[in-house]
């Protein structure tokens, strides 16, 4: 009975810590705005639940030894010369193995959800990176293009290429590159994927929260790598459809956020 109560208490307190402390913080990471956010956050939590206590135990051990067993130089006391303790050694071999297995299980599950590709996405957009700019091509051939040449000042977001996406729908991005490797990276999506010449990467996003997000190439791609930025405009579906209907097939818009969005 007593043991049971202890277990309940332990479980309860772990859960309390998880919901009250961990549940409210993102550990500084931007709150994800896609449906994938759930899995990423879950993994952060699982990792922290194991890593923080283990880290504290090890750190405590190190600091304890430094303080407790410290002697002044020249104080000759020869300590006991023990060298092996098989049960302890076995414990700290086997317990981490179990923890690794648990973390891997969660990771495997999360990965299958995060990397899943829908058969029938609502919108499929081709994202092309080049030195140095982006080209977003929509199903009707409409292109949104922006290059470094239009971007005069790193402090200004005015002339960045914009990727328009509907919210609450599965948007499939086909990532291609013709020159060197670039990376499609939007911090708020908690996701990135490389654009590699010769490899056609496909990723799905389902963004819940409409808004304007900034993205950036995240792989060194030459001199103006830092300036290879873009914006993602996520709009409610009706608004997106209205915007899309206004874009003539095959038209090209060069860099710039619409005045109203």
């Amino acid at each position, binding site marked *: 009975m007593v043991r049971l109560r202890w277990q309940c208490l332990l479980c309860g307190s772990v859960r309390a810590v998880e919901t009250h402390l961990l549940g409210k913080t993102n550990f500084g990471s931007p709150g994800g705005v896609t449906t994938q956010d759930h899995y990423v956050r879950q993994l952060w939590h699982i990792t922290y639940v194991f890593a923080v206590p283990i880290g504290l135990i090890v750190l405590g051990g190190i600091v304890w030894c430094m303080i407790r067993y410290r002697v002044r130089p020249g104080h000759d006391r020869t300590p006991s010369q023990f060298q092996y303790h098989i049960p302890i050694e076995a414990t700290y071999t086997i317990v981490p193995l179990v923890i690794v297995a648990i973390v891997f299980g969660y990771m495997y599950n999360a990965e299958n959800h995060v990397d899943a590709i829908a058969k029938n996405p609502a919108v499929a957009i081709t994202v092309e990176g080049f*030195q140095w700019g982006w080209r977003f091509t929509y199903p009707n051939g409409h292109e949104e293009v922006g290059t470094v040449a239009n971007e005069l000042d*790193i402090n200004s977001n005015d002339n960045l290429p914009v990727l328009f996406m509907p919210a609450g729908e599965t948007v499939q991005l086909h990532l291609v590159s013709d020159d060197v490797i670039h990376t499609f990276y939007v911090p708020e999506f908690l996701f990135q994927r490389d654009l590699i010449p010769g490899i056609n990467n496909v990723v799905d996003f389902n963004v819940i929260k409409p808004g304007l997000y900034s993205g950036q190439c995240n792989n060194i791609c030459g001199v103006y790598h830092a300036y290879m930025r873009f914006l993602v405009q996520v709009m409610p579906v009706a608004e997106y459809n209205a915007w899309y209907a206004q874009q003539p097939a095959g038209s090209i818009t060069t860099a710039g956020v619409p005045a109203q969005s």
Partner: protein
Amino acid sequence: MTLIQDRPEEHLVHEPVLMEIVPGPRPRGLVKYITSTDHKQIGLNYLVTSFIGFLFAGLLAEGIRTQLIVPNNHFVTESVYNQLFTMHGTIMLFVFLGPFAFAGLGNYLIPLMIGAPDMAFPRFNNLSYWLYLGGFLVMSCGFLTNNGAANFGWFGYAPLTEAIHSPGPGADMWIIGVALTGFSGIFTAVNIITTIFTLRAPGMVMFRMPVFVWNQLVTMFLLLLAFPVLTAAFALLWIDRHLDGHFYDPTHGGQPILWQNLFWFFGHPEVYILALPYFGIVTEVLATMSKKPVFGYKGMIGATLSIGALSMGVWAHHMYTTGAVLLPFFAALSLLIAVPTGIKFFNWIGTMWRGTITLNTAFLFCCGFLVMFLFGGITGIILAQPVLDFQLHNTYFIVAHFHYVMFGGSAFAGLGGIYYWYPKMTGRMMDERLGKLSFLVLLIGFNLCFFPQHDLGLRGMPRRIETYNAGMGWNFLNMISSIGAYIAGIGVLLTVINLFYSYRRGQIAGDNPWDGQTLEWACSSPPPDHNFEALPPIRSERPVWDANHPDQLTKVGH
């Protein structure tokens, strides 16, 4: 076993001949530096050269941090900035961290620790050093060329490295320089493996070698497996650039991803090449300063071996975001590395447990290693998971992670190693007060510099960007980080001053100033040519301790 017993007779036959070949006074000064085949001189050459590389690459890093201290800064141009971080990474990894430990300390200490008179191939050893120095100079001289040095990051992803995207001799000099250090590494590995396998003193069986030597041995095997792949990848790149090859050129059917696979097949073992010898340093220092044997000696060796084995199968965790690798396999192996690393940590604590600890500079640096490597290891667990890596890859979180591992970890251990073995190499102690001050300043500067970078990464700041938008919320953290970098620079300089000061003014050390346990403390400081007049009996992994403490013998045959 038979090998060891046979050797003394061979020596008797050859020794008089050797004496006749080397007559007259030994060369000194510059001539000695250039011509010596003595493992100690070559080891010192490596140590000094690699430390100069450390200072040079550190200077480049200060340039990087100065550029990033405020948004939209124009301290250097885009191209120069790219050169700075490329050469910072390349020199730190190929010139400093690796050679400092496996070639510098390895050369100097391994023969001493196993009771050998010299390396197995002394002239080959000399050749390795000159190849290495050549590599260092060639890659650094890229800065003197028209287009500047290489500017595509230290892992030079194709096709950015192709001639059409990165013209100019800087990139070629980078290729040649790295390849030369690669050859030097391979030769050193052959030399040290042969030395360890054939030149151990009578009684020094494999399981009586210090953990430092074991870690070096595993490192050398990793070198032998990894560096040829690197050199081959660089040769292909050279063919691409100059002989119209298309190995990595996608426009002619080449595969950029091939470069990544080849490079990281080298690159991940390389990470452990840069870590294992430093684990060895920490193990030796902690044991000596606690006046205890290494806790779980055999478990420690087992952990080293399994880290070595696992490290060959995790290269693609650098490529999670390419979408071209089998994620679960590499994630599982990457996570598994946490287990032997954890064993090492618990063994280090066990080594200190109920010891008699003197908090001197060498020990403090090694404790700094423990704490910061622990932190870098935990962020490593985060990054080993592909889903989290999708968020953090190539952001400043990664930069913070590997600086905690490589700088807060390995480089701190390396500095601890300098303070620990300096008396053996020069005969003089390093100044303790200056040393502790250096440790404190470096510790504060390092953490100020790199801790905020975790947060920068979580806020989405990509690495390798030359400047950034003021409205991203990165300004304050970058400012802190840059200030930390300057403070860390001062910390390193204090140790440099200490090195020079103590060389003339340091206390005379004597043969065994720390009450050391392993064989290098049995010879004089600095050791004479061919090292040993006489060896203590080797009945455990710490013969010098056994000789000095007959009442506290190391238990044998656990």
